[in-house]
């Protein structure tokens, strides 16, 4: 993104009075942290620039294990393009997020443009083009969890993470994770825990910071957590 903005500012287009005016507006919006649209969306295409090209595998250094894993995935489908999602996920795991380099590597292996991959990455919630952290806590605040006060769990976790200085973690209010039987719940790096109380928040954060499994015995897959068809009652809220 940064180079695109820089280029727009220095180009002839930016000097056009109308365009320059709009750029001022955009700068302001960006400064306020809330651009309503992507910067430069209304600028004409730069016809002098080369169209996006598919990077050549010979020009991009792709770590061998990444290459092997992506190529294996591609071999599973009648059309190798189907492996875009698995490939992006493999790269994301490898790099922590879908950095420019990660995109370039996947593009070179899959023979597509990085822009194509970017169009995919921006569509799916679990693919990140920005570093959001190696760990994640997705707190479900969707309908059923909402009915058992999930917002308070989310707030408590955010607060605990701030207080305990938890870094490198993407904390998000998420839509239904398909575990409403343990409402309100959260997914900590893919491990489902619940039903949660706000007072569980510090323990979750501490465990993540210290590399422990949070709330042992209360994960979905923990032995005897919840026999199918007989969930535990959700915790009754102390103060509604």
């Amino acid at each position: 993104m940064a180079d695109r903005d820089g280029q727009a500012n220095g180009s002839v287009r930016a000097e056009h009075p109308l365009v320059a005016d709009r750029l001022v507006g955009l700068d302001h919006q960006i400064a306020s942290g809330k651009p309503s649209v992507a910067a430069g969306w209304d600028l004409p295409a730069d016809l002098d620039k080369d169209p996006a090209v598919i990077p050549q595998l010979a020009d991009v250094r792709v770590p061998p294990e990444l290459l092997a894993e992506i190529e294996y995935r591609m071999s599973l489908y009648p059309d190798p393009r189907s492996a875009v999602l698995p490939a992006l996920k493999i790269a994301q795991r490898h790099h922590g997020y879908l950095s420019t380099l990660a995109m370039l590597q996947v593009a070179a292996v899959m023979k597509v443009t990085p822009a194509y991959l970017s169009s995919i990455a921006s569509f799916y919630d679990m693919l990140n083009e920005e570093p959001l952290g190696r760990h994640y806590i997705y707190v479900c605040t969707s309908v059923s969890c909402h009915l058992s006060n999930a917002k308070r769990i989310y707030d408590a976790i955010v607060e605990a993470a701030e207080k305990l200085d938890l870094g490198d973690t993407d904390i998000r209010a998420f839509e239904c994770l398909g575990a409403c039987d343990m409402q309100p719940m959260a997914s900590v790096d893919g491990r489902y825990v619940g039903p949660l109380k706000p007072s569980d928040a510090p323990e979750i954060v501490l465990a993540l910071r210290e590399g422990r499994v949070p709330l042992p015995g209360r994960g979905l897959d923990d032995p005897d957590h919840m026999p199918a068809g007989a969930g535990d009652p959700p915790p009754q809220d102390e103060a509604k």
Partner: protein
Amino acid sequence: MKAPPLRLLEDIDEPGLHLLEVYERRGGYSSLRKALTELDQDEVLQRISDSEIRGRGGAGFPMGMKAGFVPKGDMDKYLICNADESEPGAFKDRVLIQKNPHLLVEGCIIGARAIGANQAFIYIRGEYAHQADILERAVAEAYTAGYLGKDILEIGFDLELVVHRGAGAYICGEEMALLDSLEGKRGNPRLKPPFPANAGVYQGPTLLNNVETLCNVPLIVGLGAEEFRKLGTEQSIGTKVVSVSGNVQRPGNYEVPMGTTVREIIYDLAGGPPEGREIKCFFPGGSSAPVLTGDEGLDLRYDFETMAQAGSMLGSGSMIVVDDSQPLVPLALRLAEFYRHESCGKCVPCREGTNWTVKMLERIDSGEATPMDFELLVQVQTNILGNCLCVLGDSMAMPVGSMLAKFRHEFERHAAEARARNEGALVEQSAPELAAAPSIGPA
């Protein structure tokens, strides 16, 4: 209520059921043997058709009919299992996959055999990482045992099965969007027709079914269509795994014969609302279904036809119960926010409609709504319905529209109370001496 007979969940608590060895010990893969060695391809299809099983993924379309649309003959055909389960309130497929993955694998193989497909995919939502691991292990076991791969059971039938993980997009559960996503594109729904049975993934004929639908297939083959039809109602055959959540004492998955009453499901099985609470309304078929009030719905039979007659739908079979302590405006807002976030943006009525619905509900919630907002909110819902490539927008318009129709007074009261609070706060801020006067102080 006596314990209902179980089919899909019968063995679910058996330790190690996800392993081939235990599954086979419980009679697993015997239906596959039967389907492949005792019946020919057309007989398998006939059996599925005769069972009259309807899809469990939302639309309730008869599986046999859909499979019958797939052209016969030698060509590249595909079977896809839709395991994207992302609708708020739905979690039945998760349990089936996690606890009994081989049942699904067996169902996929028999389903593929019925239409003559040699390639199958299970599209599972990305968040179900652990479940996908379990499923992949089961698939690997099935390959080793010779139930998948080349020349299955030495009858000259080949099938490859790939578990494909999504990456967090509810829209990819919609069948046409799923096809695009599986082809490595953004998950935008395609225009129908052509339907997947004619031109699905890679433009080949494709049969696409939900997890629970396919899990029933081994039972249909094993029991025979006639025995299978003994449970359920005339138009809704078999059992249904119902995910019950929201304000109930025992949220969970409960398998019941179709036609069981809603009251039995919510009260006898799920324990009813918390002590001292009444049911205000419930979503009979996940967050996309129009709500029914407790009075309207509790004594109805839970099956496709009764729910449709009552103006709602059975959908994926997830019940979300809302008790009388819950304000509906924040609930409607959460719902609308979900659909706004998940709208793929391709069709204008859905993209703009979900966005404006959120804005208007926010205004109602914060007390900034004008009387016009209520009318407009209703109109926006009406204008989304039936006007898009897929029914994601409708899935918001139906529940929000039904809440507005049935609880309009509550929405208006909520807005009026919020407005009075705001005005009170304003007076207090700008003229504290007036605020102290009882007549104009905060309500």
